[in-house]
């Protein structure tokens, strides 16, 4: 046994224990990418560094053994900065998307690639569930949205973007046309009252998502019909009133009450603020009354927190054009959804942070050499258009068009440690960005796993695993220094290279470089 100090706490540990395990056993988090329990350490990522108090030396805790008298600081400014720098160096050569560019661009942050995969398989209902997680009015938006997502679609570089907007419209319409449209599950009643002023896209979205959380929502609008700008500014030709009404009905169906035709003056506002547990202001632009409600203003609208939409420390949240005029229905609708997270957190007395958003790795445009690689997971063929302008796509067309998706999103979105730590340490992918980037390639020959070398951080876990399990070929390091790549010897395929432990390797890979094929794609 040896005695060491971790953050001034004396601990006695077995000789040969590695610092990381000692520190983790004390309940202190130490990030690491290249460490794999029970495998020989490799000391590659340097994300797990800690500091020796006396010398001030930074050392990798995953492979440093505890020695008598050591005095370790598990985390301080230096350590945090070193970890962040290590992550940023890794990010500078990590070429891959976390979330797909379309999803990042979508103001409502909808999981477009997942919707596409489900639609391509003809799972229209499942697709709708995915859409409605972020978009309360898919049929409406499917008709009027200018589709910023399609501008970001990587398929655009190859030929034309995937027709995302019409695909979403189909998911919505398919549900509306069904005998019984989908009723999402509503959480049990929290007893909390939320008033939402303004039944436009922002207010409708906020109400819908809050109601799903079990809060008692009341939508108040001075007009006699709900829809706000959707009724006033869009032609019947573009958006039939019936479609809007059907989707509003669905919002009512999850328990949102509507108080239409009631204008809110200062006194009414004060009363509402008192009687409700939370208040969402979604009055749209040109609502003159708002100036009188005593909310802090800036020239364009109400002043609220950019992430949480909360006004100061009050119970008032402001979204949509009341905040800053916007012509984009999808943007204000997205804000409505996001505010629901803040309000929900507020009502549950959690720290109010808004919708959780994780770090996203991004890279520039695809280059022609990469088109073929991306098409390996997709199909050839140009974008399908509806029979007539303004029409939707047919079911067959939807399945075919959705299959054009390149699936730019990473398979390991939720488990990728590079992403999680980059988020936790607020790493900046651009800090050490270089002018040249590695080309993306995809090795898809294996039935169970896929390997994308440009996402590899050279931690060597796969090399160690395949060697220990005696794969005939396995993975190996090829080359040296910055140019080192992990690959199968003699240019054998991944199918030949991994016959025994493909899934084990996929699960152990700390990033999305090696992942299970079936996982969400």
């Amino acid at each position, binding site marked *: 046994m040896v005695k060491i100090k971790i953050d001034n706490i004396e601990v006695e540990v077995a000789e040969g224990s590695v610092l990381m395990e000692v520190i983790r056993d004390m309940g202190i988090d130490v990030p690491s990418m290249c460490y794999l329990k029970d495998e020989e350490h490799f000391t590659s990522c*340097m994300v797990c560094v800690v500091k020796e108090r006396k010398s001030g030396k930074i050392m990798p805790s995953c492979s440093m053994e505890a020695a008598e008298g050591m005095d370790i600081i598990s985390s301080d400014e230096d350590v945090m900065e070193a970890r962040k*720098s290590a992550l940023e*160096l890794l990010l500078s050569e990590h070429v891959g998307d976390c979330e797909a560019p379309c999803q990042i661009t979508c103001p409502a942050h909808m999981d477009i690639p997942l919707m596409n995969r489900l639609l391509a398989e003809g799972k229209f209902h499942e697709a709708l569930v995915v859409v409605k997680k972020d978009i309360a009015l898919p049929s409406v938006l499917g008709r009027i949205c200018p589709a910023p997502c399609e501008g970001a679609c990587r398929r655009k570089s190859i030929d034309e973007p995937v027709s995302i907007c019409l695909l979403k419209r189909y998911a919505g319409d398919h549900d509306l046309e069904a005998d019984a449209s989908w009723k999402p599950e509503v959480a049990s009643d929290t007893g909390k009252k939320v008033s939402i002023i303004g039944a436009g896209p922002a207010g409708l979205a906020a109400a819908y998502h809050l109601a799903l959380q079990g809060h008692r929502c009341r939508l108040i609008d001075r007009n006699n019909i709900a829809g706000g700008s959707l009724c006033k500014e869009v032609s019947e030709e573009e958006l039939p009133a019936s479609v809007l009404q059907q989707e509003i009905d669905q919002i009512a169906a999850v328990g949102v009450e509507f108080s239409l035709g009631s204008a809110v003056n200062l006194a009414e506002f004060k009363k509402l603020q008192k009687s409700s547990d939370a208040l969402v202001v979604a009055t749209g632009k040109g609502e003159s009354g708002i100036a009188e409600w005593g909310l802090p203003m800036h020239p364009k609208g109400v002043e609220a927190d950019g992430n949480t939409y909360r006004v100061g420390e009050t119970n008032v949240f402001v979204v949509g054009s009341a905040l800053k005029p916007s012509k984009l229905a999808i943007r204000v609708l997205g804000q409505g959804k996001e505010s629901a997270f803040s309000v929900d957190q507020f009502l549950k007395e959690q720290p109010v942070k808004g919708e959780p958003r994780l770090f996203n790795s991004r890279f520039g445009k695809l280059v022609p050499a990469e088109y073929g690689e991306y098409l390996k997971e997709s199909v050839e063929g140009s974008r399908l258009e509806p029979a007539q302008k303004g029409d939707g796509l047919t079911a067959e067309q939807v399945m075919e068009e959705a299959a054009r998706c390149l699936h730019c999103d990473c398979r390991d979105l939720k488990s990728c440690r590079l992403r999680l730590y980059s988020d936790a340490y607020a790493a900046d992918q651009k800090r*050490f960005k270089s002018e040249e980037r590695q080309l993306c390639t995809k090795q898809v020959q294996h039935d169970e796993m896929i390997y994308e070398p440009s996402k590899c951080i050279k931690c060597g876990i796969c*090399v160690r695993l395949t060697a220990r399990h005696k794969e005939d070929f396995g993975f190996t390091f090829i080359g*040296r220094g910055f140019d080192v790549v992990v690959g199968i010897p003699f240019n054998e395929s991944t199918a030949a290279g991994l016959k025994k432990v493909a899934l084990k390797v996929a699960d152990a890979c700390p990033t999305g470089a090696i992942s299970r094929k079936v996982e969400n794609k």
Partner: protein
Amino acid sequence: MEIEIRDIDGIVQQLGGKRHDVIPVLQAIQEKYNYLPEEALRRVCEISEITPAQIVGVASFYSQFRFTPAGEHIIKVCAGTACHVKGAGLVYDAMKRELELGKDEDTTTSGTYTIEKVNCLGCCTLAPVVQIDEVTYGHVSTSQVGTILSDFESQKGASGKKKFKLADGSEVKGEIRIGLGSCCVASGSDEIRDAVKDTIDRNDLNVKLKHVGCVGMCHQVPLVEIVPANGEPTLYSKVKAADVDQIVQEHFQPEGLLKRLSNKLLNVADTIRDDSRWMGVDRYSLDIREKHVSLFLDKQIPMATEFRGVINPIDIQEYKSRNGFRGLARVLKKMKPAEVIEEITESGIRGRGGGGFPSGTKWKMVADQPGDVKYIICNGDEGDPGAFMDRMLLESYPYRIIEGMVAAGYAVGAPEGIFYIRAEYPLAVTRILQALDICREQGYLGKDIMGSGFDFELTVYQGAGAFVCGEETALMESIEGKRGFPRIRPPYPAVKGLWGAPTLINNTETFAQISYIMKNGAGAFNKVGTESSRGTKVFALAGKVARGGLIEVPMGMTIREVVEEIGGGVAGGREFKAVQIGGPSGGCVPSWKSDTPIDFESLKEVGAMMGSGGLVVLDDADCMVDIARYFLTFTQSESCGKCSFGRIGTKRMLEILEKICTGKGTEKDLENLEDLAHWTKKGSLCSLCGTAPNPILSTLAYFREEYEAHIRGECPAGKCKDLIKYEITDDCIGCTLCAQDCPVDAIAFKPHEKHEVDNELCIQCDGCRQVCPENAVIVR
């Protein structure tokens, strides 16, 4: 060449099929086919314990190995520091143009030539150097690459060297010593040897021809020393084969009258000659008493290089006659292991490999480990560009190093030792192998050494070309047949080293000095040097200095003394700007800090490092940003790729430096560069990348204004290609040489008129400036 399965099987059978045999097996395959055919590698995996993942991983790690066939002849352009500052990059570019090779090509379509950059050919004083197969060309300029190739073509197949026959010893009238260090060989000492042999034969002289190791005066090579039996020795420098006849006859008269007569008749015009009348201006005899020679030699204290230029490297009798193995006898017969370690501790010697760890402490750590299985390793994987002292020591003093290693084995209780020598040093490998055989025959190795009862065996392991393997943990990984990835320390090799056993690993120079200490006692060593850094240090002095070479100086001597007194100051009337000490781990010490004493601590204080001992002198024509970039290019390409700071940090720093050198850098880049340098230094796993930022940090500290100038788009030294323009002044006489030399027709051919450079076309190859007889081509 067809791959014969039985050839591969034979190689495996001979060298072994264990995992750790992989590097020797790969070396043998490459030796046979001149590259590594995949078929051969697959066969190895079928019949041995070596796996595909291992063989591909290892083969692709070491730069010695090729996966495509190389050309018939290999052109090596030295990219060592000394060559770099003298324009090796331009020579490389010019050679590629001459061979019509594209950016990513290295072998001509005809398969005749393969061109490669090598880190150091160890002929820094002949910089820039190009080697084609075994022929070395020194002082090469860009405009000469064509000449070199045609010269090589004309020499091909014309070799057929005769074996030298020694004159009868009893009747020797004297001795002719020819340097056989790498510098000498590279500069043509083989030819000289043949010429001497020829002269002796023709004249029937009873003169002993003797090969000696490196004399250290590499700036004067090839050297021939004439030592008459009676009389003063004379040292001739920069000798050419054609001069040998006269030199020899100057000192030795042929035996018979008839012979003498016939000679006189044959050489009637040459009868009376003195130095001044010889045709070459760069040839003259040196008298050891001459001032500049004594300056070069007098301040030095040879310990590791004791008897340099005097003893034949491989002649064990001579070594013994000069007290060789006396130290070992003392150790084995009169001292207990603990006493040996005590003596080492008392001598104060610190590791000569760069880090300066006290050797006594290290030895004691190994000795204190339990068990009988321990190893001694001599680290001869010297790879610094511009450092070749290990090579010189291995080539010139093999017995001295062996002696040190045997003593170490005895002191720490290790029965086995390994010489780790890079395969790029074939002469060193051969010499050591020969010396080991002789030592075994004579009872200095093997069982019961010198009747002491102590058994010790030594083998040679050839490194396959990876600078990082100079790092001790990487070196051991490599012996174990793995990629040369360093491991975290602790555990230190002294506790858990090769094959998990306690291992004493010391640098070549350290072992050479251990021999000195064992022979002369700790006192003889520790009276030299400074309080914290005892003894001497061998340096490769090169660059813009008048007298370069290998020097061994007492620790504590100032940089100024080395540069000005030993080196004779900066050559060519330029201004002394800085010295780069310690190679890629070291730093640039500016001239105004040249009173810094050379010892471990003082160098660290000024941002440099002892490193392995490269000492390159820079003048005002050297761009410090370019120097930083040069070293980063080296460390980046030699980084093993294991840890994130080393792998990516060095790459990003290099990218920024390249941006700055091409005038595209910004203030923000400078900030990022400093930031990266800081974290790469702090966060890297081993000292290769941990010290890689030193050249940047030291130049930033002392020459920041040069970085800033580059950001403004100027290179004050006129070195960075993208920031300079060539112009022709009114001194032009219209000789057209520049126009003829220009590879891209950027200078129009206008006889008798002033020429002009079209800077749109100019590729800054510097050829015009070098050929201009009037110095009318200038850089702006």
